[in-house]
């Protein structure tokens, strides 16, 4: 069985277009909205999270007049809720949205062509292929990273984040009932902190590469990238297969 995420499938879809220069609607409005809300939430979470772990120089004056760490944590937790609820919404949209809305949650590991094109894409990024292929959704390598790093990493952050939150909320809290098992799974509180912290760096590195690749592909590939995540439309720069 072949999946819908390889270049052959993309070509079929492109060919199906009446006029070759027409574009395909890939990222529906909820996905695009989620993308930017999520990007903002993650940025806020990484900044506040970093300063929770490595607090700024001490404030002066009475403790009662200052609430720097308090605000830092408050903003972190609020952004954490935005991230988590947004992610749930994104999962919902994977069920009701178009087929591209499902892509980052499913890896077509059964599809040999998909694996071959991962190798192809890796070679393209290593300058070993002269011209790139066309894709409608994510290219296979990006697809792998979206699932393996972004989706997995986000789930890790949400689970560990809410487990840490549950510790503060107390053992009688709903949070603890829902996420207390995460602490037992990781062993203890400190392990959860450590993994939550490592997860931040994993996601920071993902975003660095993601943004770079998006800009680079926007310039180097044969299809639109940044405008696609803004207006949802994928257009192609040439009509060749």
């Amino acid at each position, binding site marked *: 069985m072949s999946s819908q995420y390889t270049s052959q499938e993309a070509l079929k879809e492109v060919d199906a277009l009446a006029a*070759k220069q027409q574009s395909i609607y890939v990222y529906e409005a909820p996905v695009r909205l989620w993308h930017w809300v999520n990007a903002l939430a993650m940025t806020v979470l990484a900044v506040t999270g970093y300063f929770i*772990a*490595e*607090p*700024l*120089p*001490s*404030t002066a004056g009475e*403790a*009662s*007049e*200052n*609430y*720097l*760490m*308090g605000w*830092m944590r408050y903003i972190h937790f609020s952004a954490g809720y935005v991230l988590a609820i947004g992610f749930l919404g994104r999962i919902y949209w994977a069920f009701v949205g178009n087929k591209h809305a499902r892509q980052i949650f499913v890896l077509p590991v059964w599809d040999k062509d998909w694996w071959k094109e991962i190798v192809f894409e890796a070679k393209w*990024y290593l*300058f070993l292929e*002269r*011209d790139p292929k066309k894709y409608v959704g994510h290219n296979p390598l990006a697809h792998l990273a979206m699932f393996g790093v972004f989706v997995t990493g986000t789930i890790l952050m949400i689970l560990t984040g809410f487990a840490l939150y549950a*510790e*503060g909320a*107390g*053992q009688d809290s709903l949070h603890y009932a829902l996420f*207390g*098992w995460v*602490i*037992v799974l990781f*062993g*203890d*509180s*400190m*392990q959860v*902190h*450590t993994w939550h*912290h*490592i997860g*931040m*760096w994993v996601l*920071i*590195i993902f975003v*660095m*590469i993601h943004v*770079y690749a998006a800009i*680079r592909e926007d*310039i*180097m590939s*044969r299809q639109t990238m940044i405008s696609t995540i803004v207006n949802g439309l994928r257009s192609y*720069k*040439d*009509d*060749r*297969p």
Partner: protein
Amino acid sequence: MSQGLETFYDVIRRRGVSRRSFLKFCSLTAASLGLGPAAASQMAHAMETKPRIPVIWLHGLECTCCTESFIRSAHPLVSDVLLSMISLDYDDTIMAAAGHQAEAILEETLEAHRGNYILAVEGNPPLAEDGMFCIPGGEPFVNKLKRMASGASAVIAWGSCASWGCVQAAKPNPTQATPIHKVVTDKPVIKVPGCPPIAEVMTGVLTYMLTFDQMPALDRQGRPKMFYSQRIHDKCYRRPHFDAGQFVESWDDDNARKGYCLYKMGCKGPTTYNACSSVQWNDGVSWPIRSGHGCLGCSEEDFWDRGSFYSRLEDIDGFGVEANADEIGMAAAGAVGVGIAAHAAASAVKRVIQKPDSHTRRPHDGSDQA
């Protein structure tokens, strides 16, 4: 030794404790357990009517700091009453009997009170070499532990040794010291961790079990909720400085004198479940953070293996040197940043070398789009 039919109250009175003191003990203990005023009379009633439950206290690989803590209970009353109450049918450290006479008590209790006595264990058994690294009374401790656990109604694991393994189980753990719950798997094991646990916590747990004849409510890790459901950080009196963002930045700075939060000095209060910040030590005289030092996390699993006492998070091995998550993260992000810059430069070169219209050299439909 063990006169199964006596009540706690009989024993206490026989030991010369007045009724007044006895009632005072009940209300004190009820308060320390966080129970309502009604519990004090409930407790008194139970102790007057219920037969005394024998307690066997075994010692494996340990340093005796738990016993030391226990017999220094803040209220002399508590330790007096408790010591007579449980009468410690067997405790090789503080019992009068010795040698074979002492060991005989174990067998006697096992027979006479099977299914009825509480087994309290301080320290843990080493499993390597068939347990030959700990042989009290000529028998590997692990065997003795299993035998005595078989007849116990419940097992209390005193301290971090019995609960988690503690220092003797720290890497590389040559004797394979193993916490109680991994050896005794068919009985409820109540973990009372700490190195040592606070005396009031120990007496509180025991009193609860003896008077109410039931296990205290345990958390997911098997610790009594009444003492271990909150972190040091949740009740720490320096917490307002944490929330304000006021930290000790070095050991001898002005902030240290002002009593600011010790987070930046590696205080493990935010990850440590214990009652120090509420019960405190030595009858509320002080406790570690109040004396100006961060919490070491002594009641948490494997606290010896969790890196420096002065770093809040674990060190991560396997990077040549031990490094913390931020050092590794920043190094990795830096390396990726350099990689991206190099890749971008190479991409720019590729675009220059490969003519923009090069796609049309493989014409498909005559389009000259680049």
